[in-house]
């Protein structure tokens, strides 16, 4: 074989090529697109989506799905805003409690999926309705956050030189990326996730802790969603029970565009980062153009998604022939 890229890396490479091509086209078309500021913006604008998608990546790698992430984002943002503004909690306390709630919620769904052998789709669909309902139960209205800490954090940027700076939300996204990348590549837990997604029966017979890993994956996704909810409040300075509606679908889309196989076991955390950047690039390009409808983002993502599913199918069936 003259092909130097291992079959394993084909989807990741394809994702990278798509990103470079899209960014290149946008740079040629729109003046000022090819700038560091736009790249930084890609991270800031999509931080909450990105953090959800990172959690989702591990869930999908394990062969599961988590539909509850958008609702958990909505609940967390409302919860944090309400606790700070109406109950005068310190934001740090509100964040800590929100992260614990998100993690426990995810772990709970994981337990239902593992112990009762229920389909993840249905359990997390239940979670979607439950968390959205809880968001409304906490507060029916959008609520602005006005707190010294929030005011202070707005300027807590990491200077990158050249007048550029990385916002707190973008830094959090990058931190979560590093964390998830580390889990996926360098921990037993992460490798067990791949094994379970690849062949759960084999994983069980190999003596891997299947139950613990599955529950852990949903707990991590819940943790990520809660963190994304907090990032949302930092980004919008408010909490709204409507936040993150259908965000789970965007998250699934960027994970798949990132080259992760929806059936589990194959994929890369880095692919998801690229998926988010592709998503962001399309959005930015439409924003730069000014004449294009924002609904084109959906159209473009939809087309990309279908192309990637076909690509994966081709790779998988080629693998079976070999």
């Amino acid at each position, binding site marked *: 074989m003259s092909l130097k890229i291992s079959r394993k890396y084909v989807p990741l490479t394809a994702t990278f090529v798509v990103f470079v091509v899209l960014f290149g086209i946008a740079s040629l078309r729109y003046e000022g697109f090819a700038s560091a500021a736009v790249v930084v913006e890609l991270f800031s604008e999509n931080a909450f989506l990105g953090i959800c998608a990172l959690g989702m990546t591990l869930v999908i790698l394990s062969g599961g799905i988590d539909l509850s992430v958008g609702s958990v984002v909505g609940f967390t943002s409302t919860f944090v805003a309400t606790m700070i503004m109406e109950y005068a909690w310190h934001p740090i306390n509100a964040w800590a409690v929100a992260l614990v709630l998100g993690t426990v919620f995810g772990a709970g769904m994981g337990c239902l999926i593992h112990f009762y052998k229920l389909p993840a789709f249905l359990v997390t669909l239940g979670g979607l309705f439950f968390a959205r309902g809880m968001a409304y139960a906490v507060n029916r209205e959008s609520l602005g956050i006005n707190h010294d800490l929030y005011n202070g954090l707005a300027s807590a940027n990491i200077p990158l030189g050249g007048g550029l700076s990385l916002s707190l939300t973008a830094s959090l996204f990058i931190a979560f990326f590093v964390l998830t990348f580390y889990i996926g590549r360098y921990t*037993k837990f992460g490798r067990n996730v791949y094994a379970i997604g690849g062949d759960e029966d*084999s994983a*069980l017979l190999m003596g891997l802790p299947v139950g613990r890993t599955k529950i852990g994956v949903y707990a991590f996704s819940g943790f990520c969603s809660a963190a994304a909810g907090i990032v949302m409040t930092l980004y919008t300075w408010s909490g709204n029970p409507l936040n993150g509606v259908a965000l789970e679908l965007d998250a699934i889309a960027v994970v798949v565009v990132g080259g992760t196989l929806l059936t589990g076991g194959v994929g890369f955390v880095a692919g998801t980062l690229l998926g988010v950047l592709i998503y962001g690039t399309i959005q930015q390009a439409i924003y730069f153009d000014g004449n294009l409808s924002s609904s084109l983002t959906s159209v473009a993502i939809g087309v990309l998604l279908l192309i990637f599913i076909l690509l994966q199918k081709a790779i998988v069936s080629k693998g079976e022939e070999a």
Partner: protein
Amino acid sequence: MPDPLLSMRGISKAFPGVQALSEANLTLYRGEVHALMGENGAGKSTLIKTLTGVHQRDAGEVLFEGKPIKPAAPLEAEGLGISTVFQEVNLIPHLSVAENISLGRQRSRFGFMQWKEIRERAERALKRFDVEIDVTQEVCSYSVAIQQMVAIARAVDIDAKLLVLDEPTSSLDENEVEELFAVMRKLCAQGMGIVFITHFLDQVYSITDRITVLRNGQSIGEYETAKLPRIELISHMLGKPVDQLADTGSDGLSRSEAASQGEAWLEAKDLSKEGVMSSFDFEIRKGEAAGLAGLLGSGRTETAKLLFGILKSDTGETSMAGNSVGNPKSPRQAIARKIGFCSEDRKREGIIPNLSVRENIVLALQARKGFINTISRQEQNRIADKFIKRLRIKTPSRETPIRTLSGGNQQKALLARWLATDPDLIILDEPTRGIDIGARDEIEELIRELQKEGMAVLLISSELEEIERLCERVWVLRDRQFVGELSDEEISEKAIMSLIAHSDEMEGSDEAES
């Protein structure tokens, strides 16, 4: 005798509705290869699974290195030094070879997994078996034989003292089997005990030291391989004492004149499929009942699947009524040639549980007609009623979902499905398994009737009496090849069993004429 490495005594295990094991025993010494033999449902797998912690035993005791053990999970058994390589290779297909060997036991330094160490460890482990491959490639990019070696490397990588190999050779070719045996001998020389489960008798006699036979969940006995003639081993497995076997052929059944003469309706020459079946010739005439006999895994079902086009033959030539027609490419084509196939696994390959008896019966006929040419409801009712009556299918009505029927009646409905297509040849794979005696007699009666009407019947059965009662010609299979052909008076349980039992060296002398 030294102390045994493993001693399982009086192991019982029940599942809802079945007593899978009752008081089974197994004793294994260090450095021996021990065969665990038995037909389907004998309890081999259950016994292994209770040993390795997949199932929990209901009763009995297990001593490993003299200490009582009761592992609650495979991981715990592994920790004790009991490793298993299961029938299907149990690896994670899209992870690398190296990772598959280390999975669950990787070591980390400063919280980071040491990938280099994982690779080196895998290379070392495989080198022990003289396997040198790129361990960073995905496991699924290698042949099954290599995957098998990887699975064994994984199993012994943890200082295993006891290795269970559950049908590791079923998809390997001869050279690969030899390589595997070399590895097994090496491991035994290092003091490991190996439990070897296989259907291949030649392999049992070439590698194992002792044999434990199970039947219906009970231990039949423990034998030294060298002192147990094959015919006795088979008689233990099938539960038929050698001296009680009737020597004479079947009686009473009059063979139709037409059946023994005339040209073949279907003739297949030199069919084979690599790794599945060695080359064989087959022919059947109209109105003839032929049988395929052999132990489980001998290639009976595979032969049928080759004839029916489910498996595609690599070689050979099929002709019908003397004209060459090419080997069947698909079941659809076989059906068009008026061949029907009643599969062994009713539940998975046969009935569609939630459809009605009528719908199940007309299914194959409809498939042949295509979806535009629908069969009218009236016609469907007529066909369904005809077969319900003719086969005496006991069902409240033709619209009853088939899953609510008893096994025997489901089998009859399945048979009706193929009869509705009016085939010239019907292949019946274990048509009487798991159904009661009354229904069995009815199905046998029906086979005779069909034959009288001029249909050719190919019967696959583990019940040697059934073959003896019904068939005019029998091919005997062993280790995925045809080892003999018997016809008319030659057919007896004993003759079939001795053909199954014969080793390669003895084959030539008393093989039946062909």
